Structure formats: structure tokens, C-alpha cells
């Protein structure tokens, strides 16, 4: 079907503003992705999948200006022993990064190897992204595949002893960064990926990850507190037999964030957990869009999303569990909850279950509520000042999502940040 003229004009305008790296092993994938973008057209306000989140500022040519922000704190994960890879406004910072060697994996930069014709990532770059457009289209992800300037390619062969930390920094008010990461995990391998920081005025990121049989991938990320930054991130994962995928995201501030996570459980007995905690204050829009497909037996998936909103902040959750025919004994769980600290804020949720197998246990729930007055009074009657009591209840509300982090050192770090950010809020 031909695209409406308006959509195709906007799409062409956007494409014209970007430059595609030439040649090398990604060339074919980039060309295919560009064709997909042209065929789908970039999202507009009328798109059903963008009903709650306006795509305009993510689609327009050129990033809206985003003021820089001084977080006045040590970077998240600073105390964790990790391998650090730093990108400033989407540009690799060699000085600030560690040496990229670590036992159990190889790390290469996309920009470093992209002129090669032969590379393990040739079959992987854009491969999962190409499969995520049915039943809903994700043209911004295809646009990323076509135009990504850099990223990291990680091949995990063993059990990695310490986390890899991709740390993003935002130092230009108009930066428009496109990064595309590919992770291939061999059978039985294990790694933890940490991501933190605001990345750019506008950031587009795709992470494609293939978790082979028995492999374990743990992912913990924080998205920067810069008020005016925008981000569109996609995690596309394929899970093999008895594999494990666990991802947690903490978001605070940010005028616009859309985090998509699309996972397919293709091998029996796989486990996929996706969780998010977010603090929204003021001009803040945060969207979690999750799509988990069960295509094998006895798999378990969990989606746990908690949002605390105030001063006109908006939270969105679109989450789906799709159970394919034959995916018997599926155990699917999904919960999305918001805590509205005032009457101005809103939470828009679209939880969905679509089940084509008969022997499954799936549940989903979505709630929106205010601070419990009885709890608040109880704390205050014991002498806890109101603001502190509210923070305690906010932390308690977010705890279920933070509990999804298995590594205690990291979950302590996240909880510490959370309470710190709660106290400081705006600055």
C-alpha cells in the first residue's frame, strides 16, 4: 500500500538529513533497512502504536535543543568493578574508556570494523530488527539500522567476570546520536551489561541480542536525569533454550523517553524478565513499550513496570504477551502500576494478552493510584516529616521493580540513587 504523501514526505526529509556509512559488512543490512523505512514510513501522530506518545520530536530532522545538565553526583556504577566504554554525544571517547579486552568476550566498535567485508556480525547486524515489524511496525528501529554511526559488537564466548558498562554522556545541546549495538552470546555464556547516562540531546539506540541455549544475559541501565534530552531505545532479543534474559531500567527526568523491548522466546524453558522504575516530574513523558512472544514450551516471562509521576508528568505502558500455538506451559506475568502524586499527572496503559495455546498461566494487571493516606499518617504519627514519609512510600512502591535486579551490589547502587534523586528531584 502506498504511503500517504505527508508520511512519505516526512520520511524522505528525515532520510535526507542523515548520512549512511558506506561499504563494509553492514552495507547490505543498511540498504535493506532503508528500504524497510521507506516502505513503512516513519511514525506519525495517527499511528495506533504511537497513540499515547507523540513521535514528532523523535522523527523530525534535527534534534530539538536540549540544555546541558550538571548532575552534581558521581556517575552511576562508578563504584562497581566494570569495563567502561564511553560515548560522548554518540562519539566514542577512547581516553575515558577502558581497554576493550576482557576474558570471555570480544568487544569491537562498529565504526572501527565497518569497512571490513567479513565479520561475525555480518549475519547479526539488523537481523533481529528485520523480524520485529510484524504485527506492529517499528520504522524508527530500521532507521537506526540504516544510519547508525557507531556502536559496540560484543561476542560472548564464556562466563564474563565483570560487567561491561556502556556509559553515555551529553555535552552538546544539539547532538543527534545513533548507536547500534549487537551482542551474540554463545551457548552457556554469561554477561552483565550496564548502561548509564543521557547520551545526547536526542538519542536513538538499538540493541540486538541473541542469547543462545543456556546463556544468561543481565542488563541494568539508568537513563540520564537531563531534563530536556530525548531518547528512543530498542532492545530486540532472541532467547534460546534454557536461556535467561533479565533487564531493568531506571529512568528519571527526560522530556521524552520511549523504551521498546521486543523479546522472542524461541527455545523451551527460557526465562525473560523486563522491569522498569521511573520517576517523572514536570514536563516528562515516559513510554515503556514491551512485546514478549512465547514460541516454545515452559518458558517464563515477567514484565514489572512502576512509575511515579507528578507535576504534570505522563507515563505510558504498552505491554503485550503473545503466546503462539504450541507454547504450552507458558508462565506469563505482567504488571504495570503508577503512583500519581498529584492530580495533574497521568498514566496511560494498554496491557494486552494474546494466547493461542490452551495450557498456559498468564496474568496481567495495571493500576493507578495515589499515596495511601493511612500509611502516610502512620509514618508521620511516628515523627517522620511528610516529604520524607512520601519518599519512603515512593521507594516502597518502586521496590517491586528494583527487586528484579539479581546482583545485590547493583541493586543497592540503584536504590541509593533512587533515594538520592527523590530527595533532590529537580536539581
Amino acid at each position, binding site marked *: 500500500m502506498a504511503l500517504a504523501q505527508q508520511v512519505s514526505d516526512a520520511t524522505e526529509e528525515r532520510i535526507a538529513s542523515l548520512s549512511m556509512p558506506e561499504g563494509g559488512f553492514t552495507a547490505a543490512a543498511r540498504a535493506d533497512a532503508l528500504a524497510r523505512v521507506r516502505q513503512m514510513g516513519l511514525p506519525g501522530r495517527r499511528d495506533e502504536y504511537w497513540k499515547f506518545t507523540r513521535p514528532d520530536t523523535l522523527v523530525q530532522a534535527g534534534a530539538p535543543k536540549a540544555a546541558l545538565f550538571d548532575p552534581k553526583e558521581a556517575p552511576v556504577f562508578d563504584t562497581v568493578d566494570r569495563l567502561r566504554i564511553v560515548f560522548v554525544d554518540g562519539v566514542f571517547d577512547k581516553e575515558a574508556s577502558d581497554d576493550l579486552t576482557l576474558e570471555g568476550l570480544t568487544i569491537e566498535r562498529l565504526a572501527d570494523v565497518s569497512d571490513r567485508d567479513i565479520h561475525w556480525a555480518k549475519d547479526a547486524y539488523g537481523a533481529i530488527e528485520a523480524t520485529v515489524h510484524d504485527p506492529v511496525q517499528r520504522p524508527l528501529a530500521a532507521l537506526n539500522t540504516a544510519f547508525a554511526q557507531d556502536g559496540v559488537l560484543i561476542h560472548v564466548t564464556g562466563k564474563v567476570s565483570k560487567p561491561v558498562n556502556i556509559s553515555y554522556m551529553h555535552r552538546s545541546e544539539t547532538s543527534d546520536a545513533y548507536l547500534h549495538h549487537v551482542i551474540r552470546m554463545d551457548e552457556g555464556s554469561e554477561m552483565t551489561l550496564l548502561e548509564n547516562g543521557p547520551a545526547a540531546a536526542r538519542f536513538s539506540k538499538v540493541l540486538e541480542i541473541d542469547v543462545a541455549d543456556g546463556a544468561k544475559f543481565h542488563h541494568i541501565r539508568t537513563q540520564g536525569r537531563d531534563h530536556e534530552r530525548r531518547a528512543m531505545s530498542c532492545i530486540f532479543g532472541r532467547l534460546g533454550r534454557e536461556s535467561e534474559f533479565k533487564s531493568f531500567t531506571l529512568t528519571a527526568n527526560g522530556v521524552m523517553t520511549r523504551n521498546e523491548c521486543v523479546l522472542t522466546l524461541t527455545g523451551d524453558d527460557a526465562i525473560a524478565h523486563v522491569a522498569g522504575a521511573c520517576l517523572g516530574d514536570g514536563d516528562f513523558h515516559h513510554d515503556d513499550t514491551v512485546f514478549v512472544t512465547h514460541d516454545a514450551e515452559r518458558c517464563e516471562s515477567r514484565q514489572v513496570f512502576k512509575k511515579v509521576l507528578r507535576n504534570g508528568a505522563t507515563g505510558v505502558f504498552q505491554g503485550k504477551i503473545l503466546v503462539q500455538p504450541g507454547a504450552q506451559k507458558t508462565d506469563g506475568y505482567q504488571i504495570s502500576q503508577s503512583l500519581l502524586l498529584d492530580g495533574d499527572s497521568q498514566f496511560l496503559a494498554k496491557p494486552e494478552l494474546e494466547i493461542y495455546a490452551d495450557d498456559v498461566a498468564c496474568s496481567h494487571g495495571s493500576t493507578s493510584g495515589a499515596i495511601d*493516606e*493511612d*500509611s502516610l*499518617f*502512620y*509514618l*508521620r*504519627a*511516628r*515523627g*517522620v*516529616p*511528610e516529604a*520524607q*514519609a512520601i519518599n*519512603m*512510600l515512593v*521507594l*516502597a*512502591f518502586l*521496590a*517491586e521493580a528494583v527487586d528484579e535486579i539479581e546482583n545485590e551490589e547493583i541493586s543497592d547502587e540503584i536504590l541509593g540513587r533512587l533515594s538520592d534523586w527523590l530527595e533532590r528531584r529537580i536539581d
Partner: protein
Amino acid sequence: MLEIKNLEVKLEEEDKQILKGVNLSIESGSVHAIMGPNGSGKSTLSYVLSGREGYEVIGGEAHLDGEDILELEPEERAAAGLFLAFQYPVEIPGVGNMTFLRTALNAQRAARGEDEMSAADFLKLVREKAKSLKIDGDMLKRPVNVGFSGGEKKRNEILQMALLEPKMCILDETDSGLDVDAMKLVSEGVNALRNEGRSFLVITHYQRLLDHIKPDVVHIMYDGRIIKSGGPDLALEVENNGYADLLAEVG
């Protein structure tokens, strides 16, 4: 210690008056008990004194050691030394009991200009107080009151009281839901806190608690007023005869 004069209170949302002129004067170091039929306004009095929302004071006053407490925020009343052991302690999922106790203690210390208690000192203090109330480590670790039995919740209230060392303690039906042994434990906990500088207002339906915690004065509340006050014998009278005779007597 606590002076309540002609306190009149209505519900904020409804045109319904609950307290219709309560007068009560509790001297330092004394124990007063309030008895009274269901719905007579006992809990309302305790909530209004501790600053819960939803009530409107339409007349009268309440002073704690000369300070007008009705103007204060709930946390300021707590810091001033007022404590309410709730009739229905609140469950707070996600907040650990230990964190709760420590935050409360340190908040009150901060309000009084004292330093925070160190984690080690706090742990020692809690363990010691918890032990005498037979509160085990597991109850301290769990979220506040979540999954606690009725009696465990009440013991947890007394633990908080023992830690915070308030000077004016209001116990709202702390005996309900307690088995015989727990009643003894709780009473011992209360009695251990009795001293010259601390007063108690014990709300109860049963004389039994007052066998353990001997009151100096017993008041009978009915329809938002204290209709009779007397010595410990008044409680016995209620226990034996119910409220009918008393009500007839005062008209």
C-alpha cells in the same frame, strides 16, 4: 501534661459532629483509662489529638505541656512527645520494619536537635526492646505489619513506643486481639515505661487490661462526651453491669 478543654470535632466531609465537648486533664506521671460503647468517639479523640486528616475541630482546645498541639503537623506532635498506639496498625508493604523504626527514631531525634543514632547502637537498642516483647528477628525484617497477626501488630506498636520514649502515650484498644500471655507482655512493657514524667491514656473495653495496667482515673465516654469519671472501681462497675445503669444515672 495533657489538657483537653471542650473539644468539639466534626467530620470534614460530612455534617456529622462526633466529639461534643470533651474535657480531660491528665497530670504528669498518671494513667487514665477511657471506656465507652462502640462508636462513642474514643478513637476519634485519639486521631484528632495525633493530627489525622478528615476531622475538623469546631471548638475547644488541646495542650500538651502548655503547647497548643492542634495547630501542629502530626510529625511535630510526635516530636513533642505524643504517641498513639493505633487500634488498627497500618500495613506498609515495601517498607522494612527495621528501616521504619530507625527512620522514625532518627527523625524525632533530628527534630529535637539531637544526632542520629548509629546503626550499631540502634540495632542493639531494638534487639533489647524487641526481646522483652518477644518480637523475633523475622518480624523486624519483614515489611511494617505486613502479614503480622493481630497480636503481633499490637506488640509492634508497643515496641515503637518503647523505642521512641514519648511522654504522652495513647493506647487505643491495644489489648484487643491479644492472647492472655501477650496481654501480660504488653502490660509489662507499658508498666516498665511508667514514670514521673510520662502519662498514659488507655482506651479499652475490658477491665482485664486495667488489672495489669492500674489506672489512676477511669473515664466513661458516651456520644462524644465524657459522662463520668472515677477511680479504678468505675471500670469494674462497667465490666459487671454494662453501660445501661451509668447512662440512666446521668440521664
